[in-house]
């Protein structure tokens, strides 16, 4: 009884302290104490008195350092290389997973089908070329903010809130799932690229944590890369041995809620800016497809619903527009096969054989028919020779 008395929360301030404790455990690592303190100061206005007392104003060099950290690159250092004997490469997208968000959950998560969906994607991969999997932003969700903890449901003594640490675990799990499934399917050349979107950008700004960087470090796999130069970037694509190059664009920043083609296009340009590339893949758009005459593909996401204005019923998101085969045909000219090129299953060879047999049979029938016709015609002409035709010029009509 005494123990319970000692630990019992009696005041709102103590309750707030406890909530912050939960928030810290869920969203920060043990070594991120400074980040957590920074978060408290910036967000919840609970700066400790001594922090304020000991603080000083920044100077010009602090400002320079601050703006240097802002990413303004337009081309990433990463490159996609098409080998000499490779007819192209596979490009797969895995975006908009919104890990642990309830309002817009990951498709298939409810039924534990995410592995199945990953396997389905990888089954479309052509092993003649490399496979690049782009985790294109909006992965970590948005329901990690402290307001969701404050309003979280408590069920069976459990607080139904899922912070950044759990979301990062899920991300690592999914990356591993791609690598393991690829191994099982015999896909040897695979690389995973993590690229942040609007959600990751907000997390960096508010919590000070670069989760994708942390995931990359924890995975510690040479096949996993982090594209951290921005959200709208060009990637150089090079075809070995031919000198042919092209620029492929990746854009991941989408926050618009428009559901029409024109609206979605306008909001994409607003969120990502213009990018001059020969081929662009846009992630996390509300509208899926190739929506303008330019070579811009809005890929489908793993989200269940479209981003929808508050108060409106959300529409379901289109699926399976996330596997592509890309080749450089000429300098700066890409060709894109939508849906992947691993389509020649064993049925195809058998059906082609059957087709050849049918063509042969039809030709045989045709030629046999010609021969039989001509033989019948010969017979008829022979019979005509046996008949004695009267010279009708001497016949008297009516006789």
């Amino acid at each position, binding site marked *: 009884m005494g123990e319970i008395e000692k630990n019992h929360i009696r005041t709102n301030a103590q309750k707030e302290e406890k909530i912050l404790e939960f928030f810290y455990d869920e969203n920060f690592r043990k070594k991120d104490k400074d980040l957590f303190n920074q978060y408290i100061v910036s967000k919840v206005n609970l700066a400790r008195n001594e922090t304020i007392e000991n603080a000083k104003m920044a100077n010009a060099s602090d400002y320079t350092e601050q703006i240097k950290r802002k990413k303004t690159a337009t081309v990433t250092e990463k490159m996609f290389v098409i080998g000499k004997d490779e007819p192209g490469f596979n490009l797969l997208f895995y975006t908009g997973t919104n890990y642990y968000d309830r309002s817009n959950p990951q498709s298939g998560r409810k*039924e534990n089908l995410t592995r*199945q969906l990953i396997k389905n994607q990888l089954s479309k991969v052509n092993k003649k070329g490399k496979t690049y999997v782009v985790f294109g932003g909006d992965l970590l969700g948005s329901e990690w903010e402290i307001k969701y903890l404050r309003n979280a449901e408590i069920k069976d003594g459990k607080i139904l809130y899922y912070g950044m640490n759990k979301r990062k675990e899920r991300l690592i799990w999914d990356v591993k799932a791609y690598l393991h499934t690829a191994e099982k399917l015999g896909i040897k050349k695979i690389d995973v690229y993590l690229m942040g979107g609007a959600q990751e950008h907000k997390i960096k700004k508010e919590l000070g944590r670069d989760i994708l960087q942390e995931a990359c470090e924890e995975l510690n796999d040479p096949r996993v890369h982090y594209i951290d130069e921005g959200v709208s970037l060009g990637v150089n694509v090079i075809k070995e041995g031919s000198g042919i190059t092209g620029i492929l664009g990746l854009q991941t920043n989408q926050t618009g809620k428009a559901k029409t*083609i024109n609206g979605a296009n306008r909001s994409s340009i607003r969120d990502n800016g213009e990018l001059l590339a020969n081929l662009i893949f846009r992630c996390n758009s509300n509208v899926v497809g190739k929506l303008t005459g330019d070579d811009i593909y809005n890929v489908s996401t793993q989200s269940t619903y479209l981003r929808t204005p508050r108060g409106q019923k959300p529409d379901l998101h289109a699926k399976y*527009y996330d596997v592509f085969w890309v080749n450089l045909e000429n300098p700066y000219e890409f060709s894109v096969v*939508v849906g992947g090129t691993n389509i020649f299953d064993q049925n*195809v060879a058998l059906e*082609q054989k*059957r087709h050849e047999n049918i063509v042969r049979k039809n030709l045989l029938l045709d030629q046999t028919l010609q021969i039989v016709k001509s033989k019948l015609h010969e017979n008829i002409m022979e019979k005509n020779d046996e008949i004695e035709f009267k010279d009708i010029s001497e016949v008297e009509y009516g006789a």
Partner: protein
Amino acid sequence: MTDFEKALIDNKELKVSFDRDYLNSKDERMEEILRRAGSDALDSTPIIPIKIESANSHICLIPLYDIHMFGEGFNLKRFQLVCDYLMNVSNACSFIGGDWYDNANKDSKTNVFNSKTNVSQALDGGEYLLSRIRDKILFILGGNHDAEFGDRVRANNISPAKESAKKIAPYIPYNALLNIKLKDKEFSAFATHGSIAKDPDALSKKTLKMCQRYGVVPDLIFSGHVHTELTFRFLVSVPVTNRDGIVTGYKTKNVSVEVLPSFQGNNEYATSLGYNNDYTNAIAYDIAFEKNPCYTQSTQNTEFEYMLRVTKFPVLKKMSNEYTSFAKEYMEMYHEPDKEKLKEEIADKLEEDKMQKALTDFTDALNDLEREM
């Protein structure tokens, strides 16, 4: 039709049949036309159902939209390459998506004096070019340049496309609703020229509404008219009925609006509007079925067991008159056998004494039968 000719037709892997009231016979068509003329029926935008059955698990559909034969900007070389591709790929078939001709009526926006030939020559040339691939064309849709769509009140409405089509393939004036069966599985596709709606958003809504009266939600919607390659994909909840027609639930399905590019390159009209019409091409769709990864015991009420797998690829490179690398690979996989070589092999076999004797015996038997009769 002789038994031999019938046997030849029965050996085809693709069978196409049309709505009974529409194209089965001339008499039945006339009966339908007269019935409509005598009734209160309005000629709103009708749909002609077409059934296509394939013995194969894959079909390669290469719709040819907005050819604008011999009009300003028509690219003959690229069109011929696509025709060759159709002939050389065994499972490929096509349909003409409207605007076969360019200046078939006074409403045409392209400058008739910039055409490569006059209209009469375009008709002759168009029939000649399409007669080569006649066996691959399932049907021909009317377009606004063919005088079928467009303002009915003003222009000459005797559609040259319809007259030319008599020599090539069945003519569908407005829209076709295809029911395509690949072995034992079916899907639906809707084909229209595209001038019925101003953009893919509007087209998708209009199409779904039109198909509702047939109780169908098409998986694919083919369109053209805007001379630009576009795709718009969205998810719909489709009502599922039992044998008695009672709706038992809703299942989700991806629907794709596919807007095809044209064979008409740059012209005065397009340039004046700032369009970039450099890109002329045909797009091929390899269509098959695959198991839906989201289908399980718990999701069987909301997910279909099988879904369409569509692999879409351009036939030609943009900057050169060559096939794209995957188009070449596809053609190698599905290459039409060399008929001349096969004919020679068969002719050699038929020349053999054994075969000659068998054929002579056969014709003698026919003669005996004829004598008896």
